């Protein structure tokens, strides 16, 4: 088969794949900058940053973010500690028990979050009552319950990450530390913990993200402390606004920033390591010559570009006022509506003229209706039901008024229907 054809199809496949992955995010980010009150990317009306200020003025969203951050921090601490303890135990436990222990520890991941949420609520309620505490005790606080409830399964995720690192740990390192006079605590702190640090960091990030986005466990436990996901879900019930898109956009940007920063850091470390390996002893002792921060580091370059982009956007947002544009759009819409009404009227006039030439005896049926232009477009006007109008009226003025008042460009104007119906 033709290789170029294969190559083209691979590219097409990749394009479709990334469109599927990133398309929704791109569309949603676009809606955050469009002025219509319902999130929409098309038609593009006005570039606006108002949804961001709307977001930061929404007390419930801000409170949700605050609660999410507090709960996230609590979950990170609890989950990483439990995960580390679980991982250490897994490597220490008798080999025969290991598989069983692993299954038990992993089980919370397989249990639906809803079940975990309900059982957390029920269990701690019982504990609370057994201890004879009231409904406002710390044990029944939404913060405590949510942290505990989320940690039940997030700790398992953390453990999986930590176990993977721990399996590469050489127990001889701990033995070497002991042999050199360290106590078990010192060996743990000075040898094992530094080794585990990268895994602890990634499990902390994982735990925070899992906590931040959790809904189905939190929905049972949040009590007085609704998290961001809870607030968003409640908001969506009453209609969605682009302010939520703007929040999503901020989260996307922060994520991309964090990922790029991480990548840049890793790349830089590799470059430094490579430089060290090549360096001679003299070079090493005579002060390490590091490559410039940006050289050969694509991620760092992208990071800087994105940082500059953000500053530019923020600067624009501070000075940019889309009021004129929005007013223009409104005016334009009004004009459009008028124009459409005009067209309709002209067409009807023409039709009527035709009719009057064909049967001049028949009175114009629509003339009465046009006079009583009401908010319901005259559908309830009994006059419209009459076959023949008894009150001749200046038809031209009536229909113009009706068309101009209607916000829908005269499409619901019954005059139009009548015109065609006859």
């Amino acid at each position: 088969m033709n290789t170029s054809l294969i190559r083209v199809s691979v590219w097409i496949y990749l394009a479709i794949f990334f469109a599927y992955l990133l398309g929704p995010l791109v569309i949603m980010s676009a809606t955050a900058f469009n002025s219509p009150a319902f999130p929409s990317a098309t038609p593009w009306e006005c570039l606006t940053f108002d949804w961001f200020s709307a977001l930061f003025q929404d007390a419930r969203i801000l409170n949700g973010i605050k609660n999410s951050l507090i709960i996230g921090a609590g979950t990170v601490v609890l989950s990483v500690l439990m995960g580390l303890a679980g991982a250490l135990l897994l490597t220490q436990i008798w080999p025969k028990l290991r598989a069983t222990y692993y299954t038990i520890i992993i089980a919370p991941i397989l249990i639906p979050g809803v079940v975990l949420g309900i059982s957390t609520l029920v269990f701690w309620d019982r504990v609370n009552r057994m201890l004879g505490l009231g409904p406002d005790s710390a044990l029944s606080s939404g913060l405590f319950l949510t942290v505990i409830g989320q940690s039940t399964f997030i700790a398992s995720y953390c453990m999986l990450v930590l176990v993977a690192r721990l399996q590469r740990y050489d127990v001889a390192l701990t033995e070497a530390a002991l042999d050199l006079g360290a106590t078990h605590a010192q060996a743990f702190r000075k040898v094992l913990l530094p080794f585990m640090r990268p895994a602890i960091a990634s499990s902390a990030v994982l735990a925070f993200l899992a906590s931040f986005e959790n809904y189905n466990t939190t929905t049972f436990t949040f009590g007085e402390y609704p998290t961001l996901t809870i607030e968003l879900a409640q908001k969506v019930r009453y209609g969605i606004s682009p302010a939520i898109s703007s929040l999503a956009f901020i989260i996307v940007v922060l994520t991309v920033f964090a990922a790029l920063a991480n990548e840049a850091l890793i790349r830089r470390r590799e470059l430094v390591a490579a430089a060290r390996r090549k360096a001679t002893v003299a070079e090493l002792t005579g002060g390490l010559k590091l490559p410039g921060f940006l050289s050969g580091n694509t991620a760092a370059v992208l990071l800087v570009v994105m940082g500059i982009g953000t500053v530019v956007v923020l600067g624009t947002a501070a000075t940019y006022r889309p009021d004129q544009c929005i007013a223009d759009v409104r005016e334009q819409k009004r004009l459009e509506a008028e124009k459409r009404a005009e067209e309709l009227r002209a067409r009807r006039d023409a039709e009527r003229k035709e009719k009057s030439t064909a049967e001049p005896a028949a009175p114009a049926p629509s003339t009465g209706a046009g006079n009583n232009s009401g908010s319901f477009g005259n559908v309830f006007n009994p006059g419209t039901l009459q076959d023949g109008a008894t009150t001749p009226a200046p038809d031209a003025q009536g229909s113009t008024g009706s068309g101009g008042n209607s916000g829908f460009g005269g499409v619901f104007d019954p005059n139009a229907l009548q015109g065609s119906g006859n």
Partner: protein
Amino acid sequence: MSAGVGVDLENLWIRFGDFVAVRDANVNIKGGDFFSFLGPSGCGKTTILRAVSGFLEPSEGNILIGGKNMKGVGPNKRPTALIFQNLALFPLMKVWENIAFSMEIKGASAGERRKRADELLEMIALEGQGDKLPSELSGGQRQRVAIARALCAEPHVLLLDEPLSALDLKLRQHMRTELREIQKRVGITFIYITHDQGEALTMSDSIAVMRAGVIDQIGDGKTIYNDPATPFAASFVGENNVFRGKVKQVSGDRVLVQSNRSGELLARVSTANVGKMKEGDSAMIFIRPEAFELARTGTEGDHYVSARVVNEEFEGNVFNIFMEGDGGKEIKVSLPNHGQSFDSHKGETMTLRYDVRNAVAMPAGVLATE
């Protein structure tokens, strides 16, 4: 540097469930000695080392370091330092931090630690490499860093668990001399674990040959090589030709053995077995390949074996001649190369003369399987 102290193992037994890893070991190691445990893998030598360093409690018996019983004393409280087989350098610490780790534990200031680390780096000829990471060093350099790290703890006994096994041949030979020199300089007791008889013979003051948890023989290198106590020691340390047979006559330390395929052979009873051989017992005679003298048929001396040359190999320092005696008995002969001309005798039947002092007899037993 602290002076070396003695290490004594008294009736040491170590069991793992039903498996006996060390069986009734009794060893007295003198302070300041370079002592090796030599044996094939799985013979229990690493187990002994772990027991001495405190990672393992003996099932029975005592370990005394400097005369003090170590029962219940943890590895971090013993005056020993262990050099691990894989070195176990801390990968995230710089070389100097690795070396001064034992001082960091005791709370020494960074300046003090750095100073001591630099002194030790100088001793192991790695000046100025302190700021590198262990992964940036070569295998031999890492080896020396591990030694410096252990010495920094000022142990009275340094334990080495096959530390050279990961190095290539040239480096291994270089490190042998270096280790020996370091040991002489610091003057502490070295206990060395190896399966390489070359390492044990070149470095040690004393060697314990181990087989399946049992110590077969303890002695200096020459004794072990020339006067093995058991068939295992004879066949594991160096190469040996073994002749099996029955004791025909014993007189003093001389024994006449009717060998299965090579006729009657006169041999010396090894020192450890004098008085233990009787007429009619199965016996083994060991003659080293280099103890034979190759001669033409018809020039037989008092003690000889006849065999046909099957193959000849030149190995550099020796000529190896592979021969076949009566009944397919394989015999190896090594002639040292001192520049003499070498005529091929392939296919010819030759006489192998030997000196009775170099033919060691002992009761039959288990051989080492290479």
